[in-house]
């Protein structure tokens, strides 16, 4: 177990290093930082001064080394727009994104698992067929368009919910959260639902498929044969075995939810990391883009690691050593 963890950490470090190289190449070789950083009206002397100051006249490997040195010290440079360390700005926005992603995931699980279980237990019922048809729609609907429709319906036409923003927040554990206030919750509903839509379909389909696989198993038949009620069989035998793959996918999808929050945050003006990166790309805030990319890579490596751990703890047959 510890050996496995150590190997994973070493692997993660290599991935991180590879990512810094890719990001560095992306910024410094494909794009020319001098063009981005120096105002176009600067004269030749000013240009040369800034290039020397930024170290752009040094060989590439030396530039990379100093870039890596900065990253190792948590120094991703200052944001041009905010005038503050890029990492600090990102970490300030992170709770908003995590909150949105978590609530969306809760939606997906609470709606997806019961519907999927139902469709798996009664595959030929009209309700189950309807559930499956809706799930195809859920996969095909462009989520940003659905977001616009949600605003259109619930905010503009009905006027029930706000069009965007986080609403009132309350501090908890040193961070600001929307779900602790009524106003914040009202702001949270639409974006979270929008973000969850795709995942609801996914969890639903998966839960249905898994239920379909588990039901014909011998241990289910045995459970029925020894006289357990259907509810008891489902709770203790079916659901538990269905949940293993569902839990894995939910964990893996958490990363994808964070990634897709880029879209949802832009639509609902939710002040999280996703909206920040889109704004930064439009404003060519280079240190911000680099910092975001590296933060997101770390986040993903951590998520993948946690998912593997959860997977192993849910299914003891899986040997982490292998």
């Amino acid at each position, binding site marked *: 177990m510890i050996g496995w963890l150590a190997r994973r950490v070493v692997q993660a470090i290599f*991935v991180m290093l590879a990512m810094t190289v890719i990001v560095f190449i992306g910024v410094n070789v494909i794009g020319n930082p001098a063009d981005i950083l120096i105002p176009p009206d600067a004269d030749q002397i000013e240009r040369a001064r800034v290039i020397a100051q930024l170290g752009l006249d040094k060989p590439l490997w030396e530039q990379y080394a100093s870039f890596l040195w900065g990253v190792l010290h948590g120094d991703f440079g200052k944001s041009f727009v905010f005038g503050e360390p890029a990492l600090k700005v990102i970490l300030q926005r992170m709770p908003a994104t995590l909150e949105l992603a978590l609530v969306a995931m809760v939606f997906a699980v609470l709606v997806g698992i019961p519907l999927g279980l139902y469709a798996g237990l009664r595959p030929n019922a009209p309700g189950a067929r309807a559930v499956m048809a809706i799930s195809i729609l859920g996969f095909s609907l462009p989520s*940003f368009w659905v977001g616009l429709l949600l605003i259109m319906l619930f905010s503009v036409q009905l006027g029930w919910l706000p069009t965007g923003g986080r609403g009132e927040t309350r501090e908890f554990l040193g961070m600001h959260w929307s779900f602790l206030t009524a106003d914040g919750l009202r702001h949270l509903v639409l974006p979270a639902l929008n973000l969850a839509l795709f995942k609801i379909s996914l969890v639903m389909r998966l839960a249905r498929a898994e239920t379909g696989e588990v039901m014909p198993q011998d241990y289910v038949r045995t459970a029925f044969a020894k006289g357990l009620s259907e509810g008891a069989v489902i709770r203790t035998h079916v659901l538990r075995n269905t949940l293993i793959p569902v839990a894995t996918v939910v964990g893996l999808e958490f990363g994808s939810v964070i990634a897709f929050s880029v879209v949802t945050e832009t639509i609902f003006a939710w002040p999280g990391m996703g909206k920040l990166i889109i704004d930064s790309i439009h404003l060519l805030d280079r240190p911000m883009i680099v910092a975001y990319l590296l933060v997101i890579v770390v986040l993903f490596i951590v998520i993948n690691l946690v998912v593997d751990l959860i997977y192993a703890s849910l299914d003891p047959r899986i040997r982490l050593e292998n």
Partner: protein
Amino acid sequence: MNTHVSQGQVEAVLVQTPLRRFARAFSQSRLAMLGLVLFTVIALAALFAPLLAPQNPYDLMQLDIMDGRLPPGSRSATGMVYWLGTDDQGRDMLSGILYGLRISLLVGVCSALVAAAIGTTLGLFAAYAGGRIESALMRLVDLQLSFPTILVALMILSFLGKGVFNVILALVIVEWATYARTARASALRERRKEYIEAAICHGASPLRILFGHLLPNCMPPLMVIVTIQVGRAIALEATLSFLGLGVPVTEPSLGLLIANGYQYMLSGKFWISFYPGLALLATVVSINLIGDQLRDVLNPRKRS
């Protein structure tokens, strides 16, 4: 397998060509046929957009800014009817959608095919070469697939900048890994079969074995993935364009049309965003319906 087949049944099976059998199996689902018809109509509409569209949306001379943001059914000064309304520049939405479909389909189909060619080649090669090359390639695939496509595409486009070619390139980079994984998995399964052994005994060259023998037999799962990926690519391109990172304003795809209408939605002018979204939805749904049925028909486990 059913071993008790009567003589008549054997003959009935023999006269069927694989294509005909496939067509019959495919047409079993009404939904899939609906998808196929819908997609054909959309593809034809996109292909013949210059003939069908009442207006060339790229020709600024034909646009009248005074006609901006007219609701569906309004008439222009020249008597033309804007069936789906106009956007803020006075562009006929119907024409905009027809031309936008061209860009969306072009990006989706091109990226899926190029990614399929690259990914499949690498996947087959990995399965055939084995050893370190295989494990290195598959590590790369795993790594790539552990990051969501939208994020990788976003990173690439933040470096490359906007443009139709850049979007296709970004989509190819995010999609190849799926094909590589599938191609390798099928190739590993096929490799153990006797016809490959026979081909090797015949002294066929590795290239011939890869592309002449392995590839055709790996096609069924790859076809399913190509179909599904076309739909995904179209949706992803729309999303990227919506975020302002995809195609340039001069060649608006469906996603960009939707983005243009976003700010007017809050004032109740829904049509600028709504109809392009509907077109996008119809396209993606039709492709997914086809893909779903293909998966069922081509899945050897489900084939009876």
